[in-house]
């Protein structure tokens, strides 16, 4: 099976289609583990989660367990969270602080630098000499780098440096990461849930302006009720979403599969960041500060989204199988924010997002409906990637240029476009990474 079986990309004919099988084939899930999650940079943690020496966070890249540690001297490191002896998970907690990690199985011990410091009862163990030739230290992640407080890891030693991978997206990523001179932190409180559908449905939905007025009708009506009847949960200080529908916005796409959607902000005073704009303007300039008030959702390929459409959010969506995905969702906030702004931010976040919010569960429900149909190949080529093709221009639009942004392609215009071309670069990158594997699979098939 070559890649054209899954992605039909013919820009000169105005065609871009994704096949339903992309979301359902268990064989593709296995190949994605190796060729997407084994190759791409994955978000691991915020530096602000590991402030003190010996702080640690455990997470995953795809299905690979990862341990991120700050060593005794303050240096960050990323390792497989796996004991070299029998392969048990080494660190069994999500976060904490420890100079040493001792495996619960046979007691092999490692320092926060990843170095093996004890093999239990080694002296009496009658090991052959060859054992001493083995490296017993934790396996470091092949590549481990940070960008403005975000920690990333990559399992591919040949990968381009992180900053090169993020490329021109950085201009727009900085609009989130430079909201405070002290950096950003996660508001404490774990939001962790699963949905029964493919991970790429979250990729799609996070960049999808088109679904809002249909999937979230009940929420839009609630907000109207709060505005008009002055009834309901007004404490959330949520935006009047109908005001958004008269704004201009669009999308930018970038190399390596990154992209973002944006929209001008009708009620900037309802941004938790609003009171900080004078400070921000002095620090980053008026244009960038004004851009921070626009609604933006970034997808960093493959599975990291930073959304600033209500209060600032970071989410990862990790495939557990072809039809099961783990969501981790964090409310992100400027370090040093006033308690009043923090509470405002939290309550606005909770109103919309989360497995128990007013909007996110409706997204989850429709992902699962899509996945139900993908159990069959019959849906074939999907038509959800073409809206806005006639409005997509090469390079930077006016609003991108205003802050020196240099995307590959732009859409800029009225909200009603609700473009889907923002999804094309992510699927081009998916195709680029998966094509060699699919070709190899076809070759094997021929020789079988």
């Amino acid at each position, binding site marked *: 099976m070559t890649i054209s079986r899954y992605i039909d990309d013919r820009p000169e004919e105005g065609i871009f289609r994704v096949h339903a099988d992309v979301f359902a084939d268990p064989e593709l899930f296995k190949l994605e583990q190796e060729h997407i999650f084994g190759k791409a940079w994955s978000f691991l943690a915020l530096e602000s989660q590991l402030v003190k020496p010996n702080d640690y966070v455990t997470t995953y890249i795809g299905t690979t367990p990862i341990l991120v540690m700050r060593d005794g001297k303050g240096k960050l490191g990323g390792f497989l969270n796996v004991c070299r002896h029998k392969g048990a998970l080494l660190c069994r*907690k*999500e*976060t*904490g602080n420890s100079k040493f990690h001792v495996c619960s199985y046979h007691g092999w011990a490692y320092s926060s630098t990843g170095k093996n410091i004890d093999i239990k009862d080694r002296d009496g163990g009658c090991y052959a000499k060859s054992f001493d030739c083995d490296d017993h230290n934790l396996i470091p992640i092949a590549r481990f780098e940070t960008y403005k407080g975000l920690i990333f890891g990559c399992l591919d030693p040949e990968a381009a440096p992180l900053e090169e991978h993020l490329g021109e997206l950085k201009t727009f990523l900085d609009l989130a990461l430079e909201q405070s001179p002290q950096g950003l932190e996660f*508001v*404490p*409180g*774990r*939001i*962790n*849930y*699963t*949905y*029964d559908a493919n991970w790429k449905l979250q990729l799609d939905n996070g960049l999808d302006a088109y679904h809002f007025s249909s*999937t979230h*009708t*009940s*929420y839009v*009506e*609630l907000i109207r*009720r*709060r505005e008009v009847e002055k*009834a*309901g*949960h*007004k*404490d959330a200080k949520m935006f009047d979403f109908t005001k958004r529908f008269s704004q201009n916005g669009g999308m930018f796409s970038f190399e390596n599969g990154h992209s973002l959607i944006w929209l001008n902000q009708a009620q900037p005073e309802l941004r938790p960041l609003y009171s900080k704009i004078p400070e921000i303007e002095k620090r980053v300039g008026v244009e960038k500060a004004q851009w921070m008030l626009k609604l933006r959702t970034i997808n960093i390929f493959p599975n990291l989204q930073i959304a600033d459409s209500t209060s600032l959010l970071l989410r990862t969506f990790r495939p557990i199988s072809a039809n099961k995905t783990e969501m981790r969702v964090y*409310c992100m906030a400027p370090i040093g924010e006033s*308690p009043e702004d*923090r*509470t405002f931010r*939290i*309550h606005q*976040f*909770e109103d919309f997002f*989360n*497995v*128990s919010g*007013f909007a996110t*569960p*409706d997204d*989850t*429900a*429709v992902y*699962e*409906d899509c996945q139900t149909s993908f159990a069959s190949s019959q849906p074939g080529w999907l038509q959800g990637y073409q809206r806005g093709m006639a409005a997509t221009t090469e390079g930077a639009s006016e609003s991108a240029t205003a802050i020196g942004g240099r995307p590959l392609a732009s859409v800029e215009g009225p909200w009603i476009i609700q473009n889907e071309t923002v999804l094309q670069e992510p699927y081009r990158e998916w195709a680029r990474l998966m094509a060699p594997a699919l070709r190899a699979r076809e070759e094997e098939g021929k020789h079988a």
Partner: protein
Amino acid sequence: MLDWKSIADDVLSREAAALDDQRFDDWIDLFLPDCEYWVPTWIDEETVAHDHTSQISHIYYGNRAGLEDRITRIRSGRSPASTPIHRTSHLFSALVLLGEAQDKQFEVRSSWTNHIYNPHKKNVSVLFGSSIHTLQCVDGQWKIKRKKILIKNDFLPSIVDVYFL
């Protein structure tokens, strides 16, 4: 002496039955207009959030209006997560008085298990945990002044709504 246990059993039973029978007006009516409704998150595996102003909650409402929004959405017919409506079975037990019961107010802890059936996906999920109700007697009627719900299995399945809790 106040028969707190009978009162708590009565109010919590009526709450569970109202949710299971989807009599949401009756459910809302059990809460005082200025009630607090709080479902805190876990900070890590062993620590529960303790401050809704500086930590994330699954749900936090400082009054009944948030619950009214919930019911409006469930009934709208326009929320795919709520349509068709899920079926639930609420069970609670282990009523324990916290502090001292006063004539018009007391606080009670319970353990609960709720089964939730999604008739669209045809699957079952289970949530369990503990709750603390502050009950208050207003005009001769015992009402919920505060409800704090701790979900113990917080690796959550797809959708959580107030009638699952």
